[in-house]
């Protein structure tokens, strides 16, 4: 069901990763993503894998829980890599009907599969261990310098965190409206494209109306609680780097350094 998607959800537990400064986690996620695209060889991926594995272990988020939520995304990923098999030129491996499968194509697909799945797990790990509020604070602080060139950093990050909070609520709502329309004979399982699109109207119209109503209510509630943008706000949980955060930055540097050194000096290729 829709509500099973865990991407962007917070998982409540006590761990070092949960306690870490969101800036470290944001920077870490970004650096990790970059590290995945530095080299296209197995050495770098093995290092990335080990790094990811240890971070998952530290996070105390059950691996099953994490993967359960990624099923749908993984299907998309799989399709993407299949395309790569067909569209890469190189040494032919075998032919299916009109399509030539090349060695390079298979290698490419495998690489992309690895990259993207690490990337998704890595970033979902961030949202699983950081509350949206912390995430907002972290983003706002990291992007703070952009305020000088009139980028509404606070507003954007506030919008993001609210969106994250309302995802599960809207998911549940979608489920409910869908069932209600099915009780009125609506058919969401039609195979024909046109019918499928038509069937979405009774779902989307109420959903949008409800989303707007919620947005309206929320805006009113925020104003009633004296929200007036980022100016003059204090923080309940101000961001202060602690020892653990410096250690984490250190570990990140070591990780990136080892990816660069090993990836360059002892590359292992799939082919």
């Amino acid at each position, binding site marked *: 069901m829709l509500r099973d998607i865990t991407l962007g959800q917070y998982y409540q537990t006590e761990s070092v990763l949960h306690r870490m400064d969101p800036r470290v986690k944001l920077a870490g996620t970004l650096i990790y993503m970059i590290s995945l695209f530095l080299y296209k060889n197995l050495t770098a991926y093995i290092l990335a894998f080990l790094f990811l594995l240890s971070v998952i272990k530290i996070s105390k988020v059950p691996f099953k829980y994490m993967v359960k939520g990624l099923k749908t995304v993984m299907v998309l990923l799989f399709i993407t890599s299949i395309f790569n098999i067909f569209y890469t030129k190189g040494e032919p491996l075998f032919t299916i009907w009109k399509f030539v499968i090349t060695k390079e194509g298979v290698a490419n697909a495998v690489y992309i599969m690895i990259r993207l799945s690490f990337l998704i797990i890595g970033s979902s790990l961030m949202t699983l261990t950081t509350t949206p509020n912390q995430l907002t604070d972290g983003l706002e602080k990291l992007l703070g310098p952009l305020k000088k060139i009139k980028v509404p950093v606070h507003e954007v990050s506030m919008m993001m965190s609210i969106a994250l909070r309302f995802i599960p609520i809207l998911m549940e709502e979608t489920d409910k*409206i869908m069932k209600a*329309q*099915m*009780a*009125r004979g609506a058919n969401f399982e039609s195979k024909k494209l046109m019918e499928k699109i038509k069937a979405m*109207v*009774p779902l989307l*119209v109420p959903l949008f*109306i409800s989303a707007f109503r919620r947005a309206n209510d929320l805006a009113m509630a925020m104003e009633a609680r004296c929200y007036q943008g980022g100016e003059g706000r204090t923080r309940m949980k101000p961001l202060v780097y602690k020892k653990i955060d410096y250690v984490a930055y250190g570990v990140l540097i070591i990780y990136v350094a080892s990816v660069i050194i090993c990836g360059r000096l002892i590359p292992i290729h799939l082919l």
Partner: protein
Amino acid sequence: MLLVVDHVSCIYGADTNMPVAALKDINLVIKEGEFIGLIGHTGSGKSTLVQHMNGLIKATDGAIYFHGQDIYDGDFDKKNLRSKVGLVFQYPEHQLFEVDVFSDVCFGPKNLGLPKKEVELRAYKALKQVGILDEYFYQSPFDLSGGQKRRVAIAGVLAMEPEVLILDEPTAGLDPKGRDEILSMIKNLQKEMGITVILVSHSMEDVAEYVDRIVVMNKGEILFNAEPKEVFKHYKQLEEIGLAAPAVTYIMEKCKEAGIPVSTEPTTIYEAKQEILKVLVQRK
């Protein structure tokens, strides 16, 4: 027997390490023309149970029979079931979507593949049944008042001409007058049209006056299944599970405790008044 729920269990998340049993071995028989109150607090499984009855949720275990036919049989027409067992969800006005009231009510019968004329006839009849005036037919449903929107949404299900009408908390969020209007409208449907009605609620008071039978659910199980008077006798037990008997039951109990020789049977104001007057006269 119109609808038979036979040893039905439902487990959510059976494949995870935290399965939740929403329904545990439910047995229930619903006869034609009955008016049943299904009571339980939030999370008692009452909403899950009614979604089983029209096939929206499939039971993990057990069977459901509609007119004696197993609804889980391969050749059973599910779509037909959903039109025959009409389910009105909580806050049904949230499902309105058409440009005007009339087309919205047409949605259900249209999905049944009926001819246009029949669809419109049914929509017209349904709107009349819920008491919506002609002048509102071509207005946007979103311009109506809360109570009217709810009536339109109920008409949307009625237009499919169901044999069983299930309503999940049809009075939630309405003011006292609106609540009474909706409830007596439903009672009328049951009496005049002979529709079997299942009313899901967490308020005993609301249903006490109207229903023939009360089914009390708690933690996915049926706790009581009897006439209102019978059920309210167990008001202490009802309290323990976070429900309450009608205020009148409490009043009569307290009177009796204080030494006024009244029966604790009455559940409505009218009955209580008659009882107290009777006792007063005897006293004279």
